[in-house]
């Protein structure tokens, strides 16, 4: 087992009487691409905000890149590239100002890297940020998170607002940095991108970690979302059995339409949630 880029022990964070996360523990190995899955309000952002020092947690211990998150916040932030779920910048800034500002605070000259990133993301650096769409603001955020070649990426819902081409380019960049050693931790509620790009993942629901495993094991539920028209009757169900059996069963019927696809994340969650309850 390698060293951990992220190590969280018994994290509890509440907002007054409102639940944030409860007794959450997880560890992300250096060099991993780690998915953090959960529906809206599950506690993904609270966990990330606690890691980055935006939220002050009540209990637990967070270690990032071998440093205690409370005691070495500035040094940690120097080595982290963070992309929030909603990217906002000072409205009076141009794109190039927002990017340069992030580099200036780090006292780094990131021009070569930022120019490469802007070119690949097709970002017009002379536009004012207040004129940008969410997708373009996310691109600025990607550049700000990557230009200083950090040791750890933390992305909160990184692909929301990006078109499919840019999503692909974004993950291509993530994989390139990962190949050079950058650990990537990304929260998402899009199962397919976690399945495609992450090696390990955790599932969080209602502030509690339900399961942590390799993505391969987590998605080994065999669950498929099946929609079909059998003998003139529309059916829509989650199938967890052997697909060959399903196909054999369907062969004896008049099937006019069939769609077999990945289940929605919520449906996968239900699977894990039911497991949790029966334990």
């Amino acid at each position, binding site marked *: 087992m390698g060293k951990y880029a992220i190590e969280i022990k018994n994290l509890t964070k509440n907002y007054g009487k409102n639940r944030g996360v409860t007794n959450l523990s997880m560890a992300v190995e250096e060099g991993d691409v780690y998915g953090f899955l959960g529906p809206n309000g599950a506690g993904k952002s609270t966990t990330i905000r606690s890691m980055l020092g*935006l*939220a002050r947690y009540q209990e637990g211990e967070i270690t990032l890149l071998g440093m205690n998150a409370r005691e070495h916040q500035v040094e940690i*932030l*120097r080595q982290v590239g963070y992309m929030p779920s909603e990217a906002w910048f000072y409205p009076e800034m141009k794109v190039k100002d*927002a990017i340069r500002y992030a580099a200036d605070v780090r006292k780094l000259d990131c021009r070569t890297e930022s120019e490469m990133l802007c070119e690949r993301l097709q970002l017009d650096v002379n536009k004012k940020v207040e004129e940008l769409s969410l997708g373009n603001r996310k691109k600025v955020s990607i550049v700000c998170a990557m230009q200083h070649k950090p040791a750890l990426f933390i992305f909160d819902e990184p692909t929301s607002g990006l078109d499919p081409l840019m999503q692909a380019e974004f993950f291509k960049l993530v994989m390139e940095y990962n190949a050079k050693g950058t650990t990537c931790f990304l929260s998402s509620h899009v199962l397919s991108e976690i399945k495609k790009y992450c090696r390990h993942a955790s599932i969080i629901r209602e502030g509690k970690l339900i399961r942590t495993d390799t993505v391969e094991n987590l998605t080994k539920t065999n669950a498929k979302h099946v929609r079909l028209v059998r003998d003139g009757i529309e059916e829509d169900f989650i199938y967890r059995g052997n697909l060959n059996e399903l196909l054999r069963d369907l062969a004896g019927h008049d099937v006019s339409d069939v769609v077999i696809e990945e289940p929605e994340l919520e449906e996968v969650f239900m699977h894990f949630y039911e497991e949790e309850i029966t334990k």
Partner: protein
Amino acid sequence: MVLYKQELKSNLKGFLIWFLVIVGMCFGCILLYSSVESSLSDMGDIFAKMGVMSKAFGMDRLSVATMAGYFATEIAMLHALGGGMFAAILGSNLLCKEEFGHTIEYLAVLPLSRAAVLVQKYLAMVSMLLCFQVIGILCYLGGFAIMGEKISAEHLWTMGVTQFLMMLEIGTICYCVSAFSRKNRMGAGLGIAMIFFAMDILCRVIPAIEDSKYVTPFYYCNATDIFTDVKLSAASIVIAAGVIIISLILTVWHYLRKDLQ
């Protein structure tokens, strides 16, 4: 000091608007003096005998018919009120704008400690208030020179320094309000400035609330008092310093602990 420069840059437009409006108006009033001088000399006695109104605005001690009286009772008061309002708007917006403008996740994940954020933003406010006062007073000195009027530079600079302290006190109180809030508190800031201004006028005419002169920062920077050589109240200055220090301690205490969202 990247954040300090950014704050100066982002507040430059607001600074210029307030400066040009307030100082421009005051400067214009100085230049207008010769054309209103004759009518003011007729009105000087009337203004001095308006009872509590004259007392409230110091016109019972300084005649508006003189340049010093005209400046202290009219122009300097306008400058103080405008400066106080500018300080209030500036201070009440500095910290909470990051949260209501959703830029906090851009700023707070840069390698800057929260203490550094507080220091750089506060220094930016102090710098702008200082510029407002220094350039403003230099403009007024220029105005007097153009008009060929002689006015005590010592009185003028004393006024400038005490008004700067007043602006700093209001700005710091509002900075503290800003640390405790996630919403735009410009209205609250302006309210604080206006209440202090009203308190200064009222405490001069209502004996029952005379002691509130120690509360309002407009009292110790009153230009009529300065131009009539009324001794500066040490208690007021000590209280002002105390208010600034307590506001800063509260700001730091809360901001270092709060959840930024």
